[in-house]
């Protein structure tokens, strides 16, 4: 999948850059993030928990940074394993552009999923990724610049797809949960 877009954050670029490198702020911003740790200047590990209906699952992944150009942007790449549910891997280019006192964050994500994630979830991924990155940005902007008066009303926490996954389809629910967690990681990829 390919996902690109931009988001305006009401804070100066240096502050946004610093926040993007602050594990505590990221932890607040990533939906379901339990733990995030910088293991080196260019490596980060994260554990994200997501709950969908009755099912919750944990997902862990590693992200690497390259083409570091503070405070203008970087390229990130990473890989996450979801056990028998499959894998996600991908990368993103992130660019920060000054706009007066605010910052516009441009992102281009390119991700690939495999195994059951692709088999069951391939056509659900784009929409879910957009929704999760939207949540991320709202949280992130709030953490960096305080609550945003112009923020979109929050979406229901469960994406539409999970409505199809009733109690009779625990596996589908579970797989959907993993997809969401993977996509939470992709949001990480996109932003730090």
């Amino acid at each position, binding site marked *: 999948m390919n996902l690109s877009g931009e988001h305006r954050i009401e804070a100066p670029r240096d502050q946004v850059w610093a926040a993007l490198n602050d594990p505590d702020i990221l932890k607040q911003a990533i939906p379901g993030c339990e733990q995030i740790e910088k293991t080196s200047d260019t490596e980060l590990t994260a554990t994200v928990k997501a709950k969908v209906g009755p099912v919750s699952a944990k997902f862990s992944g590693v992200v690497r940074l390259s083409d570091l150009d503070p405070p203008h942007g970087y390229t990130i790449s990473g890989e996450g394993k979801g056990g*028998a549910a499959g894998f996600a891997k991908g990368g993103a280019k992130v660019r920060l552009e000054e706009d007066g006192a605010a910052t516009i964050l441009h992102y281009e994500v390119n991700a690939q999923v495999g195994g059951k994630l692709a088999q069951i979830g391939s*056509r659900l991924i784009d929409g879910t990724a957009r929704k999760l990155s939207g949540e991320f940005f709202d949280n992130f902007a709030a953490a960096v610049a305080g609550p945003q008066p112009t923020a979109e009303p929050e979406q229901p926490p469960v994406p539409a797809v999970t409505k199809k996954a009733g109690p009779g389809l625990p596996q589908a629910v579970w797989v959907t949960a993993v997809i969401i967690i993977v996509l939470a990681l992709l949001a990480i990829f996109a932003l730090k």
Partner: protein
Amino acid sequence: MPDSGTNTGIGASVRRKEDFRFLTGKGKYTDDLNRPGQAHAYFLLSPHARAKINGIDTNAAKQAPGVVDVFTAADLAADGVSGPICGWVVTQKNGEPHKSPAVSALASDRVNYVGEQVAIVVAETLAQAKDAAELIEVNYQPQPALIKMKDALANGAAQLHDDVPGNLCFDWEIGDKAATDAAFKKAHHVTKIDIHNNRLIPNAIEPRAAIGDYDSGMDMMTLYTTSQNPHVARLVLAAFMGLGPENKLRVVAPDVGGGFGSKIYVYRDEIVTLWAAKKLGRPVKWTAERSASFLTDAHGRDHDTHAELAVDKDGTFLGLRVSTLANVGAHNQIFSTATPSYLYGCLLAGQYRTPAVYGEVKTVFTNTAPVDAYRGAGRPEATFVVERLVEKTAKEMGIDRAELRRRNFIPPDQFPYQSPCLVQYDSGDFPHLLDRAMEVIDYAGFSARKQASAERGKLRGIGLSCWIEACGLAPSAVVGFLGGGVGQWESANIKFNPTGSVTLYTGSHSHGQGHETVFAQIISEHLGVPVESVEVVHGDTAVVPFGMGTYGSRSGPVGGGAVYKAAQKIVEKGRKIAAHLLEASVEDIEYAGGTYSVAGTDRTKTMAEIAFAAYVPHNYPLDVLEPGLDETAFFDPMNFTFPSGAYFAEVEVDPDTGVVTVLDMVGIDDVGTVMNPMIVAGQLHGGFAQGIGQALYEQCVYDENGQLLTGSLMDYCMPRADHFPSFRTEETNQPCPHNPLGVKGCGEAGAIGSPVAMLNAVIDAIGVNIDMPATPEKVWRALQSQAQAAE
């Protein structure tokens, strides 16, 4: 036709005996069976289409709650157990055999498709096995996958298998190249097509399943499994996979919910489940989940073909040239070399007397699931090529589609007819089939119907296919000559019980076809026993003497032939018993409909009396005749059978949405003698459903990385009852000349002739050439691009 005087003989629409249990939930499928103390298996499948495996760590999984053990390729290799095999050696253009890479029982140092089995977890419960599978750490090193055939064949492409250069399984040819080239030089017109035969995923209603059971006291292994051919599975497991010997291996295929070819093969899951049961000393049960079936069942079709037809100014066919790339997926299976070669190329002449035909096929390994025989197996692909080409020729030359075909038909008085593609057609009356099909569909009235549709803003189209196939696989000598690895006979054992009822043991296997009814009808016809008194037993190697199973529409022609031969042996032995009891000479005993009589007298003995005398031989010629009434026959016919048909499809397309509505589907079939008209109609209807599914709905899609995007019933569109009109079928009852029942087989016919008739109808409606499936999106886009081009 029945000479028995009963209403349950050949030709009667006897209700299916097996349906009571199927319709009331009383069927016994593999997953319904449970063995005392059984453990449950789950397979870890590869999420990568192509990757090196640098190591597999199963320690955490082995420690997980409830886990009995976890095995990988190394464990099976240590016990000398190997993986799926290819059953047919195809000789290439260069005289060398095709390339058949060795396949391990589980993926060892690499994976070659998403879904390839990497490890088996055996645990007390299925949930525990699945949880533990999460803990297996496979160190994959992903590599770029080769999904498209042209990429796999490209110069310098990576190799799936070290011993298969260029990923080419075989480069094969059929027919006369020089004669065909000469024919094209004389052509007035040449029609050319480039077509894709879409890849299909079988989706039998019952997923594959296996239970391995080992009796250490008897040193006997038993595999309960979803097989179309349990004896073949036993032979293959014993002879090639190291799980024999045959006398210590029993394979049981109980009720099986559909196969369509996908259950011919012996898969890794079945091999490994059986082995694990012996290794662990306890029964092990495995049932595929639907999502695993999508990934691991052998897929069907997937051909890219360029074909050309040379015609003279009158539309007479002079020569046909066909060049095909066929995808075999990641590795070979039993019929994966035979299907795109002989089962395809031998039918390229179709119903026509095209004098020169040349076909060449390259088969290619790709990082996708194995591709093998699927209902029709090669013959739908051949029919698709021929009948698209003929339909396009009619359009290009301005000759009516039916008239063009009629000019080129092999005349009915030319049989047996030696085709330029190896086979000898035994019988057929193609003009009659077409005439009748035109009557039934009201071909003459089509233009008025088209006009009426146009007035409602709809595009109406009609499509024809005149097809022939070779089936009834058999004959052993020919199959062996062409590279097949096994015999192709069938066996039957008829046991009269002392009280006059009959038990028939057949080596054919029924997984929905209705053997229990039709074979009972053969007994009823020839031995005068009502079908209710005939028990048909199949599917268990410990009970049935021998068999080659069910595929290639062989049960009626070959399995039925064996039943007939065994019945004749019963009749002849009974005649001797009757002569003794009636105190007459054998020559004077007449037999009809289950009753022996002395010629010219009213002295008779019924078959039931004969059976009783045979088992209670108080008054019996023991000096010259053995007691008992129990005869076995093997039947191996001298040729394939050649069913044929003329099919019309009529559709209406909504130009605003691209939705195709099937208005009518007419099939006039020559499937030989019709033993049970209701069952034949059912087989044809099922074939139509699958054929129309291919033409309009079904499409297997892998993305460029080899991930299966159509991996569930949400994304892979199967046909439903409300997609269809009421099908109209008729059979001509022209007997096959070389088997005793005169039957030709009807299991695959519907799926062979219908896809191209349907696509021809859609193309006729929209006026644009498109490939299958004709989905609303594809049809709509074709109409839009046509409209833009016209502007």
